């Protein structure tokens, strides 16, 4: 089954999890759990007992573990989408730069990430194709 048209070679892009058909199917339960946190009553229940709350959703054990451990990169690798998993970050009071640093997979600190952004962001040169950089 071809999921992505040939001109859309996403595979060669480093450090990027594209929301294609396979990602959609793998991440459906995880992302729908995240979406449920839009509701204040659900947030209260999740706060009360995180494990009991996520057990109500159709998620794999690996996805549950990634949520409970706040493994931000792991959630993406297991089908999570950033706009959905960010609901958990908002629940934790974290901002996009804090989890951006954690997703870098290099042990980068929040301060390092912030400084990288202040200096113009992660350079595009060296980050277009896998193998050009450490992000592959």
């Amino acid at each position, binding site marked *: 089954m071809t999921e992505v048209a040939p001109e*859309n070679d996403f595979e*060669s892009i*480093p450090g990027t999890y*594209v*929301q294609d058909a396979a990602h959609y199917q793998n991440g459906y339960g995880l992302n*729908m759990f995240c979406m449920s946190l839009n509701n204040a009553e659900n947030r209260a229940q999740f706060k009360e007992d995180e494990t009991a709350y996520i057990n109500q959703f159709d998620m794999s054990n690996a996805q549950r573990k990634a949520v409970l451990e706040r493994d931000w990169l792991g959630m993406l690798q297991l089908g999570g*989408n950033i706009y959905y998993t960010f*609901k958990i970050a908002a629940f934790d009071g974290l901002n996009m730069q804090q989890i951006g640093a954690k997703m870098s997979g290099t042990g980068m600190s929040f301060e390092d990430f912030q400084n990288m952004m202040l200096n113009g*962001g*992660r350079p595009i040169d060296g980050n277009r194709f896998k193998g050009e950089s450490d992000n592959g």
Partner: protein
Amino acid sequence: MANIFSGMGTSHIPAVGAAIDHGKQGEDYWQGYFKGLEPARAWHAQNKPDVVIIVYNDHASAFSLEQISTFTIGVSDKFLPADEGYGPRKVPAVQGHPALAWHLVESLVLDEFDMAISNNMPVDHGLTVPLSVAYDAPAEWPVKVIPLCVNVIQYPQPTAKRCHDLGIAIRKAIQSYGEDINVSIWGTGGLSHQLQGERAGVINSDFDNTFMDNLVNDPIANTKLTHADFVREAGSEGIEMIMWNIMRGAMAPKVEELYRFYHVPVSNTAYGLQILKDSA
């Protein structure tokens, strides 16, 4: 006959809304950014249309993975700010324009753009931050708004060309609306940014500025970009830039650029703003 009054591209970064809502505009981090907005806000204060079509994307607020529509028009007379996970923004409710919204639906579908129709869609930062960019924090928004929500999250998103073509059809729809009103269109999102993965934080100023140059001088060039071009060059969330093509398609073939502002960073994103007007 309704008239196309102006076009604007603007990023819709949630941190901008938070900075305005929590009075942080004077902080060091934000001063340069809000200074750059001043000429745009002064222009908007003097140049108010009756209705703005805001082309934006929902971020898992009104719509989820349960059902994904490529293009959705909001036909309600009122749209409430969404709870995105930390309580709704304390900004005014957005007033719709059902008559023009239904005219758009009819004209576009008969023109073979199969729009989804929504009467109940809370609107998130994708729509309310552009209003804050233009109008700051008024007690009521000074314009009526038609939300046009685009799927930019799930592959395959509409192509860059399809977005431009939709804009052309929107222009035709506006110009066939019976009432003499002024209608503006805003394309929102972008510019280069990647929020996710090991490559989070990627910014590509050359790509962004070329894209904005092309919106003025060679909009067809921007219709030739593939999904992978956007993701590779502008980051995974940079693909939101396709929504600026909808705005541009609704403008005349020749436009004047009244103002441009580009600022890096705002949070993890390259902020861009561009105001366009049809050439006389």
